[in-house]
């Protein structure tokens, strides 16, 4: 009996981006290494291109020069008239869109992996932008299974207002890879090893898929963004309370109403309000202080993917 599956086009063009944030070093050094010696990321029949997206920020070991590159790949910024007055990252976004896009066109790259680190204790994380993307859900299922028992979490950023215009969003299949905890400006060997494994399994999946393997229908557990929570601040806008020790490093774990969330600078505990259990992520991420995000609340849900097989077989 022939199984019922969705036929997907073969994957031809893959890119691996590092240095979208210049101080998130794992991606920077993996990409620089692969630019010199790319054997590890090659698979038969597949073009895999490593690329440093924000070289000026990488050189200065800073997150960005003028503005966050990973927030500006919307059509308005990509369509602005090129000029020296545009922020560096907007000009760079247009170059990247030209090389790997254009966004929403047939010519864009099939898959872009964008490599990131976080100071939060999020472990290995895959970021999904579309809950109905069978191909990526299958890929993520494959990666999670291959990494086990090392946990790998899936963060779904599909949301009417909170979804942001990522660098990778110019591809047909955008994949965010986020590994932490790692301080900005530090390269840890254990984190490097974890990210390397995630990429290896991802490329193996693509290779198996292109070779005609059928992936039966599957489900994965994901954490979907609900809302972002800022630090309590005083009248001058300065932080008046910090992530409570009970919440620090507890990314993905259930947080119940009444559980401690913040500790004021003079020692008082602020509990979680509301009436539902949430799963916090990006708890105490250094780069999010200026974005006014102490952590994000997510809700756990299960996504299903149809069986898929490459249409050439």
């Amino acid at each position: 009996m022939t199984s019922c599956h969705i036929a997907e086009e073969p994957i031809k063009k893959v890119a691996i981006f590092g240095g979208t944030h210049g101080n998130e070093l794992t991606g920077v050094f993996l990409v620089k290494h692969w630019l010199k010696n790319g054997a590890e990321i090659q698979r038969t029949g597949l073009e895999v291109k490593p690329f440093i997206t924000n070289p000026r920020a990488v050189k200065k070991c800073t997150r960005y020069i003028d503005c966050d590159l990973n927030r500006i790949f919307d059509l308005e910024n990509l369509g602005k008239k090129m000029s020296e007055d545009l922020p560096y990252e907007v000009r760079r976004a247009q170059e990247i869109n030209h090389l790997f896009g254009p966004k929403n066109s047939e010519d864009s790259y099939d898959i872009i992996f964008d490599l990131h680190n976080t100071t939060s204790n999020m472990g290995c994380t895959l970021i999904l932008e579309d809950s109905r993307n069978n191909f990526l859900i299958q890929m993520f299922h494959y990666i999670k299974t291959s990494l086990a028992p090392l946990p790998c979490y899936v963060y779904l950023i599909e949301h009417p207002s909170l979804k942001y215009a990522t660098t990778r969003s110019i591809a047909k299949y955008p994949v965010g890879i986020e590994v932490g905890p790692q301080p900005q400006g530090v390269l840890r060997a254990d984190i490097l090893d974890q990210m390397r494994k995630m990429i290896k399994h991802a490329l193996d999946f693509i290779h198996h898929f292109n070779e005609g393997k059928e992936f039966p229908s599957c489900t994965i557990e994901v954490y979907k963004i609900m809302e972002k929570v800022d630090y309590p601040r005083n009248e001058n806008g300065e932080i008046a309370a910090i992530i409570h020790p009970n919440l620090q490093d507890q990314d993905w774990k259930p947080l119940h109403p009444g559980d401690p969330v913040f500790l004021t600078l003079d020692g008082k505990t602020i509990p979680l309000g509301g009436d539902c259990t949430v799963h916090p992520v990006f708890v105490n991420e250094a780069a999010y202080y200026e974005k006014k995000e102490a952590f994000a609340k997510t809700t756990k849900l299960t996504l299903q993917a149809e069986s898929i097989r490459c249409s050439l077989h």
Partner: protein
Amino acid sequence: MCSLPVPREPLRRVAVAGGTHGNEMSGIYLVRHWLLTPAELQRPSFSAVPVLANPAATAACRRYVDRDLNRTFASTFLNSRPTPDDPYEVTRARELNQLLGPKASGQAFDFVLDLHNTTANMGTCLIADSSHDVFALHLCRHLQLQYPELSCQVLLYQRSGEESHNLNSVAKNGLGLELGPQPQGVLRADIFSRMSALVATVLDFIELFNQGTTFPAFEMEAYRPVGVMDFPRTEAGNLAGTVHPQLQDQDFQPLQPGDPIFQMFSGEDLLYEGESAVYPVFINEAAYYEKGVAFVQTEKLTFSVPAMPALTPAPSPAS
């Protein structure tokens, strides 16, 4: 290097500095808190002054604007003629020298406590000048006894024969508190609380000293830098590998010849080739990549610290 004389008068002018590096958050938030709630820094015999050492770097959440402030308190910077092109930190160092110094003068502050964080797994590290710094070492001993669970380690930073260039050196005496691991730009509640408690105990010690307490002699174990090791680099100067997983987070643990220290991106391990054990600290500190330091090698020493006799009370004024 000559001994720092033990103070013979009560310490009256004490400062606690945060934000010497503008992205080391514990000290920054403590100073901000004390500027609003100064009572916490008051003791019966003195009040400590909170100082935000590098305001411009703090506002930008960067280690420094032009140059590392904590390397700028040498006399070449402090005493040279100001020019409009001076780096921000040189101008600021001169201001701090006016406020807390002048360095090596009788008018300098009695004591400066400088608050730092590191991305390295150094726990609670107390940074004193040298084994001759009797007052600071008794203070370290006091902290170790008050907080046995913290395993406070003492690091003796000043290299003999070299002029000091750190903030503490502006005052007559000083100590650095270095707490980690904490990423730059992140404020962890556990480290913040620990630093707050340590500062309170430092001030309590100064109060005890001022009230005429005797401190007996003791044997101290401390670590002293003997060299640094850079990351393995390509010809172009880029990283070719990073700290080996077996060395990562092992600050203050003995490193033996033959132990792995770096893991290359291509997979091989580089081994430590020294002749004897060293004790690495500041392992994988973010701010030290640009200084060419993957870790600082230290030797462990044990030495005697003489008793610190009680202050003799000043004669009371005739009534």
